[in-house]
């Protein structure tokens, strides 16, 4: 049976559902000790003294490390020059800054001992807003200044085009920091040996290996990173896994004992990256017919204390600020600045949710100003195959935006209340999104994958991309199953271990199905060549007359002429035909101008249109989502269960971003670093997302597929804002739109 497009179980589900899957915190080694860090506790200052005597004296404490004990450069980051220390030696740039690592016989002792470490800090006035950071006389948080990264996208002549616009809308849109809030806090376990092994809850093991080795002052080959079962990541387990991974390895080598470092929940929120808070000034001009002629956007991202993935997030906001629309004249400037707050980096959506909120708000404003239908204006301006997008890139196929709009328009159902109750306000919102798939022009995009068949006909897939819950292993297994004609239960996917699989780049940018899938497909095709050649020899016919299906090599013209695949594999093995292949998938080199951000960026885009109907309680601000439709062009559905799971899960993260979740700072200290006060949605807050897949074949993906993990976050966030704005009759320009905000807006409206 061909399993492409079929609802299949997760290939790694059995271990997870029985509790047998090994997460990093589940490893146990003889002699293992535990690490805990002392954090700065103030957002800015200079360390004047570290006194760890009281900690050392606590029974059970085995070691105390400071920056001086780090063999390598004591720096991590994503792009050079790396700017984040593992342990701070002088400057304190945020409250969660790690200063001292304490190792003890138990996690509990380590934590208590870390609390006893005294770090004397000469405090500075913290810089807590982007405005303060950019003030001409601002203290420099880093030697390079307070601008982390700034870029411009220039297409056409926006300033001139505004002159010819009949209507112009302008606004300033703000979004807040969001925490990944994966259920498993960051955890690593380092085991010393001739080569050190790091078991890590992580997203990009090869990236971690490089940084860990550098900070050990050893070659990368001296470190092996094994990805443990990872309890969610969403972009969050890159930098921080590097940080605690390096610390654990350094301590493990010093002590010659295994070292585990597991974050507590509060540390996970304070001491690892968040989604960038953003302030987006946006201006859009259109003709009286509703055709958008120009847009000018200024994006200011609060990146917190360190650069992390900010350069890429900055770039992503540039490229996506136009949304999925043809806008011939575009000027976008995007800047990330340093502040004395928790550093910000990758989080599912990667800058796109922020700019999509601004963009989609303006589309509604334009429609209202022009008296146009809100869906119609999207259709009018929406990208089609052959159109040039924001960077001037033209796709001749797989631009399914218009079909997602059509599907949403067709599936409209009435949300009007059956009984009139003046307690409630009702509203409907629409939002469209485009999100680039692959690293694209942000970096080189290469994936290596291996496929091998044993003589018993079973298949093993190896790839350096990671399973984080998103179901990628299942997709890769389905691809191998489909090509090699064996059932899905005969296919396994290796756990990721930097010794055992090829470096495949980072598991980011919704690229696993698309770029990773292509590598698996190519490797499987090579193994298939050996099998059909062998079967051809056995059936005395040419290889092209053989197909692999249902566990057999079958003569195409005679279904009864068939040989079990294990027999073919065994014969191929003894004949010396290779049954293993390592293949690479590389995105085409981008033809891209980094000064204007014009050119070809991504191998594909995912396009989507959402509709949401809400009921707002005027007195409490409670919002009930009555209906949420999410249509996405995914090229080709590989596993409907996986796709729905991605769209539903991403949508709820988008809903949290837009309505419930907000990191609350006071004087640079996070006030709600726990799950009671940081409200990620519970099951009673879920929204009724219905997935509507659109399949516009993507030539750069396996069987035409393209990724879908991120785009619904942006669309769900924007559609919530538009639906609530519609219900309340007030344009909300700040996310999250909390219950307090809604009540306040209604009150204000009553008094006006």
């Amino acid at each position, binding site marked *: 049976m061909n399993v492409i497009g079929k609802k299949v179980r997760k290939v790694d589900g059995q271990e997870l559902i029985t509790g047998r899957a090994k997460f990093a915190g589940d490893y146990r080694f003889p002699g293992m000790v535990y690490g805990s860090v002392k954090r700065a506790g103030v957002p800015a200052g200079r360390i004047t003294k570290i006194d760890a005597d009281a900690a050392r004296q606590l029974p059970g404490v085995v070691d105390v490390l400071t920056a001086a004990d780090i063999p390598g450069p004591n720096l991590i980051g994503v792009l050079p020059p790396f700017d984040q220390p593992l342990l701070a030696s002088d400057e304190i740039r945020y409250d969660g800054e790690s200063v001292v690592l304490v190792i003890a016989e138990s996690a509990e002792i380590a934590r208590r001992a870390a*609390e006893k470490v005294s770090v004397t800090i000469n405090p500075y006035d913290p810089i807590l807003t982007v405005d303060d950071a950019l003030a001409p006389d601002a203290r420099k948080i880093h030697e390079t200044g307070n601008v982390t990264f700034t870029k411009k996208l220039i297409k056409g002549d926006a300033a001139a085009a505004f002159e010819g616009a009949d209507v112009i809308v302008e606004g300033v849109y703000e979004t807040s920091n969001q925490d990944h809030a994966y259920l498993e806090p960051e955890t690593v376990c380092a085991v010393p040996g001739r080569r050190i092994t790091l078991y890590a809850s992580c997203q990009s093991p090869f990236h971690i290996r490089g940084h860990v080795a550098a900070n050990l002052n050893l070659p990368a080959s001296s470190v092996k990173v094994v990805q443990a079962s990872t309890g969610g990541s969403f972009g969050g387990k890159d930098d921080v896994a590097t940080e605690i991974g390096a610390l654990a390895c350094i301590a493990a080598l010093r002590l010659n004992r295994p070292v585990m470092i597991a974050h507590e929940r509060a540390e996970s929120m304070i001491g690892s990256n968040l989604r960038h808070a953003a302030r987006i000034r946006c201006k859009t001009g259109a003709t009286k017919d509703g055709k958008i002629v120009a847009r000018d956007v200024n994006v200011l991202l609060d990146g917190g204390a360190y650069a992390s993935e900010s350069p890429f997030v900055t770039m992503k906001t540039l490229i996506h600020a136009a949304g999925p629309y043809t806008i011939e004249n575009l000027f976008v400037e995007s800047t990330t600045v340093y502040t004395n707050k928790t550093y910000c980096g990758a989080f599912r959506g990667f800058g796109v949710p922020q700019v999509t909120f601004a963009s989609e708000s303006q589309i509604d404003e334009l429609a209202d100003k022009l008296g146009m239908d809100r869906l119609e204006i999207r259709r009018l301006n929406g990208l089609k195959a052959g159109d040039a997008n924001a960077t001037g890139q033209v796709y001749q196929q797989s631009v399914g935006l218009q079909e997602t709009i059509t599907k949403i328009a067709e599936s409209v159902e009435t949300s009007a209340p059956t009984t009139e109750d003046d307690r409630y306000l009702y509203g409907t919102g629409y939002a469209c999104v485009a999100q680039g798939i692959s690293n694209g022009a942000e970096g080189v995009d290469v994936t290596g994958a291996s496929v091998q068949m044993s003589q018993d006909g079973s298949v093993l897939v190896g790839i350096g991309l990671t399973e984080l819950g998103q179901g990628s292993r299942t997709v890769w297994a389905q691809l191998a199953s489909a090509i090699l004609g064996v059932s899905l239960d005969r296919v396994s996917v290796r756990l990721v271990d930097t010794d055992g699989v090829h470096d495949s780049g980072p598991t980011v940018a919704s690229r696993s199905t698309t770029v990773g899938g292509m590598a698996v497909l190519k490797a499987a095709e090579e193994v298939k060549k050996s099998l059909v050649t062998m079967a051809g020899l056995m059936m005395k016919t040419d290889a092209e007359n053989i197909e692999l299906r249902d566990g057999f090599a079958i003569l195409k013209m005679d279904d009864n002429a068939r040989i079990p695949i294990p027999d073919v594999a065994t014969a191929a093995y003894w004949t010396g035909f290779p049954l293993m292949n390592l293949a690479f998938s590389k995105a085409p080199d981008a033809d891209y101008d980094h000064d204007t951000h014009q050119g070809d960026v991504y191998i594909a885009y995912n396009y989507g249109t959402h509709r949401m109907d809400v009921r707002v309680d005027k*007195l*409490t*601000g409670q919002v009930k989502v009555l209906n949420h439709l999410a249509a996405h062009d995914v090229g080709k559905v590989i596993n409907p269960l996986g796709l729905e799971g991605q769209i539903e899960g991403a949508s709820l993260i988008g809903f949290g971003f837009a309505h419930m979740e907000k990191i609350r700072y006071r004087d640079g200290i996070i006030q709600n670093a726990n799950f009671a006060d940081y409200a990620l949605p*519970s099951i009673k*807050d879920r929204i009724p997302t219905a997935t509507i897949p659109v399949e516009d074949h993507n030539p750069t993906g396996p069987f035409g597929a393209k990724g879908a993990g991120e785009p619904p976050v942006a669309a769900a966030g924007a559609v919530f804002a538009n639906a609530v704005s519609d219900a309340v009759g007030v344009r909300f320009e700040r996310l999250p739109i909390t*219950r307090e905000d809604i*009540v306040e807006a209604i009150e204000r409206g009553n008094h006006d």
Partner: protein
Amino acid sequence: MNYLKPSTVEEATELLGSSQGMILAGGTDACVYMAEGFCDPETLIDIGAIDSLRGIETQPSDDGDVLWIGACTTISEIEASEALPRALRQGAHAIGSPQIRNLGTIGGNICNASPCGDTLAPLLSLEARFVLRSATGTRTVESADFFTGPKQTVLQAGELLECIDLPIDSCEWISAFRMIGNRNGQAISQVNAAVSTKLEGGVIQAMRAAVGSVAPVPLRLPQLEGALVGKTLQSVQWADLKAPIMAEIRPIDDVRSTATYRQELAVTLIFDALMDCARQDESARKGADT
């Protein structure tokens, strides 16, 4: 750490008197405090296994019959007990999650004295009395007098909460509870409110209202109570409630909410609880008619 597990109340109060240990009932607050390092008790006295501290039953008392609730009765048991007034059951249901409610006790919720504890406003609105016991004797305190500040009560060293007495007549009144938190499931109240009403033909003969999270302690609202007596419950308007409630509450801005929103919520939640009572009364009267 010493962990003591007495099997009788007498034993518990003696241990408490001699050790100055910390009482552990369900443990859902104590475990958080210990994990956060807010407390590091030398001795824990686990009263969770004392049978005589558990249960719900009618008992005679000097002031007439009372509904007796043992302090170690779990929140889940409160929630499930059909003998108890609706406001208290609804308040119990609003606490944490099923997991927390299966562990946590009503005595713990009371003695933790968080201004947002969800059984507190119901208990005030039911004019519950708390029986405090020490090695030297017992005393009874009105629920409205028990709380002295956030996490502070009149409990003295060596005293523990033994039981809660609900006057039987207040259990016969129609009552309701409402809360709103920062999410719909497993939320801590930004504000909670309880009302209990004595009605005749839909007219309020007497009522008691209480709110939580709008002052350092859960508050009774006597001005509101006075303003509503004699009115038809159905005719009560949101706007009627605002002035008397605002006069009595003192909400603050904090990490969980803003003072302004809390004011609005206090009014709305009292209003919604009253409407809940109105619906109960209506269906009771319909039931009586048929």
